[in-house]
């Protein structure tokens, strides 16, 4: 290792980060201070006017609430179901390896395929779900057409797609819990539920903290599921900040406002992550 190698390696990483991440991010933020009707038009500096404009719009607050509901509910379901499946897959049973493999499958599917499949399944006239529900005499569900059903539909698809991530990471983490702790708890008289709350959960808390954080950030910024199913509709019922930002910038041609929404979204998420780490420190206070 010559004395030039360390600075050289660091420089490569630093330049890549600057060019590919910091630069575009700063550019995007800078756009929010200008009025532009397209990326090629002449920008006019307007200061914080776009922020004032965005914050005064009802659709912004609607999108923020939708984003929190969408991310919040889908994370809770993913984590609860994911841990549940992980605990089941942790038990020895015949064909466990196969089931473990299958359980990971949804995570490998491109979102587009999952979404299109779901749309076909619930299609109003041809969908297998629609036909089965009709045969059973159940009233039809308008999956993407009514406001509350649409939110639940996008949550359902998201949970189906990303619960395997929680299951797999938690299942891997479960292997690291020393079996003697469970045995000690059994001797101490703790049943399965208490063993989960007194051994599994506390031991895996740092890992669970990271899982929830990752899923939280990803779900809050998740664009494709909603875009491909409802596009934010009906009447903005599933529109969250990424969709609103995109629509404002590229459908309503107000680049500055779109950038302002994205910036606010970023600041909001940063604050949320900061508060999250304050509430659940990674380092166990001893």
């Amino acid at each position, binding site marked *: 290792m010559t004395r030039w190698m360390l600075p050289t390696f660091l420089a490569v990483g630093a330049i890549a980060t600057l060019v590919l991440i910091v630069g575009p991010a700063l550019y995007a933020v800078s756009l929010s201070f200008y009025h532009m009707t397209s990326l090629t038009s002449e920008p006019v500096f307007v200061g914080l006017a776009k922020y004032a404009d965005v914050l005064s719009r009802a659709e912004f607050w609607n999108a923020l609430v939708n984003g929190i509901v969408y991310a919040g509910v889908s994370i809770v379901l993913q984590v609860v179901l994911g841990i549940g499946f992980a605990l089941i897959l942790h038990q020895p049973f015949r064909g466990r390896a196969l089931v473990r493999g299958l359980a990971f499958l949804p995570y490998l599917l491109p979102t587009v395929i999952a979404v299109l499949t779901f749309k076909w399944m619930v299609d109003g006239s041809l969908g297998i779900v629609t036909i089965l529900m009709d045969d059973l005499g159940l009233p039809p569900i308008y999956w993407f057409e009514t406001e509350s059903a649409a939110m639940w539909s996008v949550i359902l698809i998201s949970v189906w797609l990303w619960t395997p991530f929680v299951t797999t990471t938690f299942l891997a983490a479960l292997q690291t819990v020393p079996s003697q702790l469970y045995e000690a708890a059994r001797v101490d008289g703790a049943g399965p539920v*208490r063993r989960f709350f*007194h051994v599994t959960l506390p031991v895996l808390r740092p890992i669970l903290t990271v899982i929830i954080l990752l899923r939280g950030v990803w779900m809050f910024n998740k664009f494709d599921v909603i875009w491909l199913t409802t596009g934010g509709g009906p009447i903005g019922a599933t529109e969250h900040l990424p969709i609103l930002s995109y629509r404002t910038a590229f459908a309503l041609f107000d680049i500055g406002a779109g950038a302002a929404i994205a910036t606010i979204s970023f600041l909001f998420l940063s604050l949320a992550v900061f508060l999250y780490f304050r509430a659940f420190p990674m380092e166990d206070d001893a």
Partner: protein
Amino acid sequence: MAEVSLRTIRKTYGSVTAVEEVSLDIARGELIVLLGPSGCGKSTTLRMVAGLETITSGTLLIGGRDVTSLEPKDRDIAMVFQNYALYPHKTIRANMTFGLKMRGVEPALAAERVEAAAEMLGITHLLDRKPRQLSGGQMQRVALGRALVRDPAVFLLDEPLSNLDAKLRVRMREEIALLQKRIGKAMIYVTHDQTEAMTLADRIVIMRDGRVQQIGAPLEVYDRPQNVFVAGFIGSPEMNLFQAEIAGGLVRLDGGATLPAPDGARDGRVVAGVRPEALELVDRGVPLSVRAVEQLGSQTLLVGGVGEMGMRVMLGRRDDIRAGATVHVSADPAAIHLFDPVTEERLPSASDAGDRSTRA
């Protein structure tokens, strides 16, 4: 009445037998050590008593009650694990209280018992710490304390000292022995360390391949090993074992050298055993070519050979023997153990008249 009673207890995994019909009665206040090499079934036996492994067949009684198919918590046992198994996120106090809490013991009473146990083990100042702030020895004390507060009929210890360094191991061994005498409860202690077994046990149960080889007091198994395996396993350095033949009142080792035969030995092929410490220097005896001299301080160990066969001799301190020398050794005929070369079982001799140890 026995506090703990194992009656023909077996454990099989599919077609593999892990433990073969162990029967054992343990009295109140008795310390039983299960001893054997790894994979001998000693831990499995302990875990069956604990209820952490199901018992394939046989009956287990604790305090006169049939607990064969009860959950660990309903067996009136407490266990100390090799890796301590302290709950890492709980304080020491909470670790020791947990089992009492699960049993619905009054919080005030539980606190009192934890304080008392902590006092006895000298860990009062650690009660509000977390396990990872403790040293190995301290964690082991806490693990003992957690078992102690439960006041069970029997304590089960699974290799409790094997994660400690040698010096600490000796000290904790002494403490466990004192503690056990003081509380006067039955204790089953699993180890692969024969020194631990010899020093701690009221009776040792020696196991191999899932079978009990011999049950007896430490000196009984040392003086009258029931078979070749026990002879080799108990004692350090281990017993010298030779293929030999008894003829005319002599043990003729296959290399040609002879030792005096014990009284009543019948002529024929045998495996002859003699402990290194039973051998002594004589003018005319087995010629031993010394290959190495190990000075242990108060004792001197000669490592050498008789013809093709290796032999160790433990003497009082000798500074004058060098590697390469040839010395003559012999032993008191009563100190020579004879075993059947086929079954490897001990052959009866006159010195076994007072044999009280139990045959497996």
